[in-house]
């Protein structure tokens, strides 16, 4: 009997689906494309220290967090903690200690909400990290779409990305991410692996979130 949620996520494999379905996924599960938005448009985000936390220990979440950290460190005026620094402060990180997989759907649908249990975990992490902002990022689904037609077969990878920006010391949700990103398959020929395509997809997703985050918060580095 498998009691707990998976540390490794299920990855969805779908075949012969319509373009419409792909578009729905690209727009996030709820038909939304919001790489980053503020909950309250009047909120002013002050540059300070920021820690990006991987929602779980799964490779997809870990990579999203690493790429977003890298982007924000390079391009924003925030003092962004490295993933290594975070791991030194939080024993066992990255793992399910930030966000358990037991109540994901509501958190994916209600952008200004985080379950009490998971919020408690983020607060506990903040107590160790002491950053002004905590950005939790995770992937909802990673899907491989195989579409067959007269022109042949096409393979696309699609990921749904979710995030929450917590502002401290108040500990409230200041912003969120909910969007989908896709990449056509280039792998499996010329010795390239599927992992490289998915890696690129995750890198692009983090970049998309970082672009919007930096533009909305007005924290772009002058010497980009």
């Amino acid at each position, binding site marked *: *009997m498998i009691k707990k949620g998976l*540390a490794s996520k299920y990855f969805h494999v779908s075949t012969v689906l319509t373009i419409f379905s792909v578009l729905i996924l690209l727009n996030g599960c709820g038909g939304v494309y919001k790489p980053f938005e503020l909950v309250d448009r009047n909120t002013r985000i002050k540059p300070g220290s920021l820690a990006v936390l991987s929602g779980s220990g799964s490779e997809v979440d870990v990579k999203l967090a690493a790429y977003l950290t890298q982007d924000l460190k390079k391009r924003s005026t925030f003092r962004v903690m490295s993933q290594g620094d975070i791991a030194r402060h939080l024993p066992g990180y990255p793992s399910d200690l930030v966000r358990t997989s037991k109540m994901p759907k509501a958190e994916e649908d209600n952008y200004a909400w985080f379950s009490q249990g998971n919020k408690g975990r983020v607060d506990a992490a903040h107590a160790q990290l002491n950053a002004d902002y905590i950005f939790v990022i995770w992937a909802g689904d990673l899907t491989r779409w195989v579409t067959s037609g007269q022109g042949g077969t096409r393979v696309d990878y699609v990921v749904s990305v979710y995030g929450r920006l917590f502002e401290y010391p108040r500990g409230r949700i200041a912003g969120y991410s909910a969007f989908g990103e896709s990449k056509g398959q280039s792998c499996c020929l010329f010795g390239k692996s599927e992992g490289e395509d998915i890696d690129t997809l995750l890198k692009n997703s983090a970049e998309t979130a970082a672009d919007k985050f930096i533009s909305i918060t007005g924290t772009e580095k002058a010497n980009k």
Partner: protein
Amino acid sequence: MAGYMRSIIFIALSLIVGACSTFNLVDQNFRLKGKTLAVVSGLYNDPNMLAAQYMTDALRKNSRFQVMSQKQVAQTVSNYPQNIKGPYKSAYFQIDTDYSNTDIKKIRQIQQQLGVDYLYVMWTPTATVMNDKIYTYHIIAQLFEGPSSKEVGNGMFGATAGKTDCCLVPKPGDEDKAKAIKDTTELVAKQIAEKTGTQK
């Protein structure tokens, strides 16, 4: 037409998964050097731990190896289970194998702590679901011989719950998924016993 295509693709996928070699000896002239063995979960996730437990049971039942219990393994290895770098470059929809990628230093350390002649390490890095109905855990494993933890065998296989993606068939539940892991480990254990010459 869509259903027809789905079936063809699913059959093709099944053939690919079915064609995976569940256990192979690295050297065909392998000769058994000892009889104690421990199964180790290479990742800290529930399906992996479950697979290690079922493989322990299956090897006890089907081989003449003296197999250490998972409880003993947990008591002897500090922080067990822990994430050990495994024999793959990536693992999303399939495992992209690279048997040289394993953290052999860590494996050697664990084998020395356990003091067993053979260490069978399993990784379940990914699981896929097809049309919400067919669940597959992708598993890769290596058999090491002590005390230097030389790789003497390896294999890759899938444990699949759900036979069809037909809309009338219910989704497999946790028990179906656990049973898929149990049945698969039973088959693989028989192969290991056969190829290492330890059948009961």
